[in-house]
């Protein structure tokens, strides 16, 4: 039976790790100030579509019939939607994040550091939670497919405008030149 973490070739990774309580402020400060967009450390982790870190400090209390709950430690959530298998991705995560992984998960219990590949992978998997249901709108498309498709769409839009009314000979030559195999 297919893993509930998988939809087509996409994988949903959920990691929930206990934070050392005294380090929660350092962690929050680091995450809140780390670069965004191309400067994000996550931009160096190939095949990631979307990812996030979330500090979950305490459970929600709704009142009513619910009694107050408490957790032994706040949790750091990491989720990623990526292409392919888990093991190679964890290695990409380790290498891509490098020291940033230590600055983030170094605030969590028992984190071994990014310089120990097997221990790093073991720690991630030890703190992994399986999805119960995973939905991917275009699970068959890898990150490169998405980026390439967006580029082709842009190219074709420009091409169609630029070559409106071209004679067939010119049109074919221009198309072959524009869209290389």
């Amino acid at each position: 039976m297919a893993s509930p973490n998988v939809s087509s070739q996409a994988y949903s990774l959920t990691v929930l790790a206990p934070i050392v309580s005294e380090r929660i402020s350092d962690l929050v400060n680091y995450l809140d100030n780390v670069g965004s967009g191309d400067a994000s450390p996550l931009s160096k982790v190939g095949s990631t579509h979307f990812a996030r870190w979330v500090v979950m400090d305490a459970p929600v209390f709704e009142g009513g019939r619910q009694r107050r709950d408490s957790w032994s430690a706040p949790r750091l959530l990491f989720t990623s939607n990526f292409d392919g298998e888990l093991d190679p991705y964890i290695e990409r995560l380790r290498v891509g994040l490098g020291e940033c992984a230590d600055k983030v998960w170094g605030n969590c219990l028992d984190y071994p550091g990014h310089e120990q590949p097997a221990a790093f992978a073991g720690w991630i998997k030890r703190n992994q939670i399986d999805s119960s249901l995973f939905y991917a709108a275009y699970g068959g498309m890898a990150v490169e497919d998405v980026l390439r498709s967006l580029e082709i769409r842009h190219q074709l839009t420009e091409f169609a405008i630029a070559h409106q009314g071209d004679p067939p000979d010119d049109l074919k030559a221009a198309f072959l030149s524009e869209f290389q195999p």
Partner: protein
Amino acid sequence: MKFCLCMSNVEGKATAITVMSPIWPGARHLLRALFAIARHPVGKRGQGKLETLSFIHYARWAVISEFPNGDRGEKLKYSYLFFESNFNGTWDEYIDAFSEVVPVRMWAIWFTSFGFPGPQPVAPFKRYIRKNEYIANHYWSAYPEAATTEVNSAGRVAEAVTALRRKAEGMDRESFKKAYDEMLMSIQHDF
């Protein structure tokens, strides 16, 4: 206590939502059964409704009974229903759409959560989600300026261009022109 400004939930056109709600004792079995049905090929047909919510890139649910950490995991007093979504548009539009388009499914998934008011009317539903939401401290997207519909459209355009490119060299100029025009017609709604 929420630690962060809501802007960290946004990256370009993409918005992150992260919700973890405590559920009634024993409800985890029911929820796991519901999700197992939804994963089954027959139940998967129901996910077509999610596809009509065409602004969702990726979403997931998980039923959490204990926090992992190998042998040192933490058994929880209550189980939790975890939900995350990556979508384009605003938070309000997103919750409005869920409330309008798939209210029965929302009810089926969240009715075992403490304090769940139901998906309609939408105002209490929004208050409930806000209360159970955790704001992302860092959020990243590989293509922040592309909405879900753009990604799907671009996929169809790329497929059409690649198919024409593959056969173009063997075509005479008139056949190529005809095929090119037909291609543009077939993907006109994807621009």
